[in-house]
């Protein structure tokens, strides 16, 4: 196990080093965070915001407490409106259903609108392996598909790409030089994808929220590709996490107050699309078939446990937009479908701590994520609790465990502590005066590689306090 975890740590460090050295990434990610913060902070300060967050937390907690009943109700209503529901226990089952469907329907061209769950279950490669062409239509995902990269952010997946990098990608795909202008590049994407929407045999989307009472699938989008994907192809497949439900349509109200601001810095997104079943018999457009794949993939394990609140996440991305660690290392360093603070908690819980050993420790516990979470999830606290789990299952480094125990042994014996200080501190002063020699060497190497060590006074507070001139009581 030690060998495995050392390799995992090395790989993590390598990813981090790449991110830190990537000047474009450093600039663009910071700018993206600042851009969102400037838009959202004034709104977040309003009293209405906190009330809406509490409301979201209340609705989602209730939903999770009765999740089986709501999933049952949702599925029944989807079917009553002519849709089909498949219950996928895990990623493999979900993949198999969609792949089988694509095969049965001889779907050669598939358009997709953004769905983190489809990333989680690794759907695209599975579809491609049966010869289907899968086209990502969300602009950010479209960019990633051309660059052969994974999502960098859960809302704006290609936020790490500069204008010039995108221009190069699009120009190569277009076979001609395009202008370094966001408008021109967007025009290109619109043109390139339009035909695909019309020609596609199948459209696959995610689901921001399912409404149990009506069997409705709700998509919250800006670009219009969500509508195109779910309107034009003859078959629409929805892939959704089992926890993405609300009881009634009215329960969307507080979510739609917060999600557009936190996710996109605006009061409302251009589109909220509520789909209930496939087209009716008397309708002239819309998909003839609707399939909803409800995915568990480890979520039920989190239900009822100490991390349950993580399932109330509305995928707004606010935590990524304030995380100072994400600001430096970017989404790819996390090497998980979900990056940032949400990923640091969700990925170990879904995949197991062993697969993401570093993530709970790649945080300074500053608490910014908890502060902005749209659903009131105590993210920083969960990250710390995952560290506790790491320690109790024995995977935390032995050196630290022993070190803290030694520290504790001294800390519970104040007289011993004082004596230890009397010995260690003059030595420390000596070290700090010869500071230059110890840069990058010795037990403090991890500190001194990047920072000077403070000049130690050589005696402790308690020693100086005892020796202070006694003040006469006035």
């Amino acid at each position: 196990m030690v060998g495995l975890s050392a390799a995992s740590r090395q790989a993590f460090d390598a990813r981090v080093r790449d991110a830190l050295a990537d000047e474009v990434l450093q600039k663009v990610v910071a700018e993206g965070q600042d851009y969102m913060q400037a838009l959202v902070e004034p709104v977040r300060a309003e009293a209405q915001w906190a009330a809406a967050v509490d409301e979201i937390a209340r609705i989602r907690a209730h939903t999770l407490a009765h999740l089986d009943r709501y999933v049952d109700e949702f599925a029944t209503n989807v079917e009553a409106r002519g849709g089909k529901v498949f219950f996928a226990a895990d990623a493999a089952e979900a993949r198999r259903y969609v792949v089988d469907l694509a095969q049965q329907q001889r779907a050669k061209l598939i358009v997709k609108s953004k769905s983190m769950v489809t990333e989680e279950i690794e759907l695209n490669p599975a579809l491609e392996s049966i010869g289907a062409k899968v086209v990502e239509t969300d602009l950010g995902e479209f960019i990633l598909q051309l660059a052969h990269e994974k999502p960098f952010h859960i809302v704006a997946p290609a936020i790490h790409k500069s204008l010039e990098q995108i221009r190069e990608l699009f120009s190569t795909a277009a076979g001609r030089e395009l202008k370094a202008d966001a408008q021109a590049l967007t025009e290109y994407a619109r043109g390139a994808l339009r035909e695909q929407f019309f020609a596609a045999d199948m459209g696959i989307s995610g689901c921001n929220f399912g409404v149990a009472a009506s069997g409705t699938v709700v998509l919250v989008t800006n670009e219009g590709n969500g509508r195109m994907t779910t309107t034009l192809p003859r078959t629409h497949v929805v892939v959704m996490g089992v926890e993405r439900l609300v009881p009634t349509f009215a329960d969307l109200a507080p979510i739609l107050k917060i999600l557009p601001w936190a996710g996109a810095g605006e009061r409302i997104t251009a589109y909220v699309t509520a789909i209930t079943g496939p087209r009716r018999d008397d309708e002239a457009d819309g998909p003839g078939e609707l399939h909803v794949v409800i995915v568990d993939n480890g979520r039920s394990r989190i239900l009822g446990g100490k991390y349950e609140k993580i399932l109330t996440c509305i995928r707004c991305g606010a935590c990524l937009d304030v995380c100072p660690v994400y600001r430096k290392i970017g989404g790819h360093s996390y090497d998980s479908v979900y990056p940032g603070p949400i990923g640091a908690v969700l990925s170990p819980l879904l995949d197991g701590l062993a697969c993401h050993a570093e993530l709970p420790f790649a945080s300074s516990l500053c608490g910014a994520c908890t502060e902005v979470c749209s659903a009131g999830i105590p993210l920083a606290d969960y990250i710390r609790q995952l560290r506790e789990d790491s320690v109790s299952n024995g995977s935390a480094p032995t050196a630290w465990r022993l070190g803290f125990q030694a520290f504790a042994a001294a800390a519970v014996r104040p007289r011993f502590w004082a004596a230890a200080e009397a010995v260690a501190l003059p030595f420390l002063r000596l070290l700090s005066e010869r500071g230059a020699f110890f840069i990058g060497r010795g037990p403090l190497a991890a500190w001194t590689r990047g920072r000077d060590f403070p000049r130690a006074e050589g005696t402790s507070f308690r020693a100086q306090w005892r020796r202070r001139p006694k003040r006469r009581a006035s």
Partner: protein
Amino acid sequence: MVTCLGDALFPRVGLAAARVLGNLGVAVDFPPGQTCCGQPAFNAGHRDVARRVARPFLRAFADSEYVVSISGSCAAMVREEYPRLFAGHAEEATAVRLASRTFEFSEFLVDVLGVTDLPVSRRARATFHHSCHTRRLLGVVEQPVRLLGMVEGLEYVPLTGADRCCGFGGTFAVTMPEISTAMVDEKVDHIVETGADLLIGLDMSCLMNIEGRLRRRGRAVEVRHLAEVLAAGWSA
């Protein structure tokens, strides 16, 4: 509350805080039974060890009317975490009582002592670092700024990105040193931008981190805990 870091590495800060409190007519005591509040172990996930360390800490302050901490994050540990850490344990009531009597230094001056005026002067262009735990867990934001406003001759320049973490994060600084250094680099950049010759803060852990990087980058900005500024500039 002098904290383990304050005790070992920054005695001058504890002494300065004691002097300021004394000047304000507060009878200051240092219960020697205190060593560490347990936060380093707690944040690193070693809950049981943290509790072990915290127990004598509880006992040390049993007779204290107020506990004033020179570290916001340590005060937050006691106030926010102790009740939960000791929930269901014999010490639960003691922990809750201690939590209700524990304050961060600037918070104590402004909210408890009601200080509105200080005979303190210091001529300098100064900026201020709001530590994450002090700001987010204790809600202490205004108090230090208000106290700085009482220092005659001090030109206060707000820091850009003031609410962004300096990268210390306890063991994080040494377990993920490259990320930590990148974070403190940005903090140093913002400090340099202000043109300040003095950086003031409430947590020596953060200040130690920032000062370490300032020095490594050859910057001469003076770094002081608020208590040091008040004590040193106090007119007799």
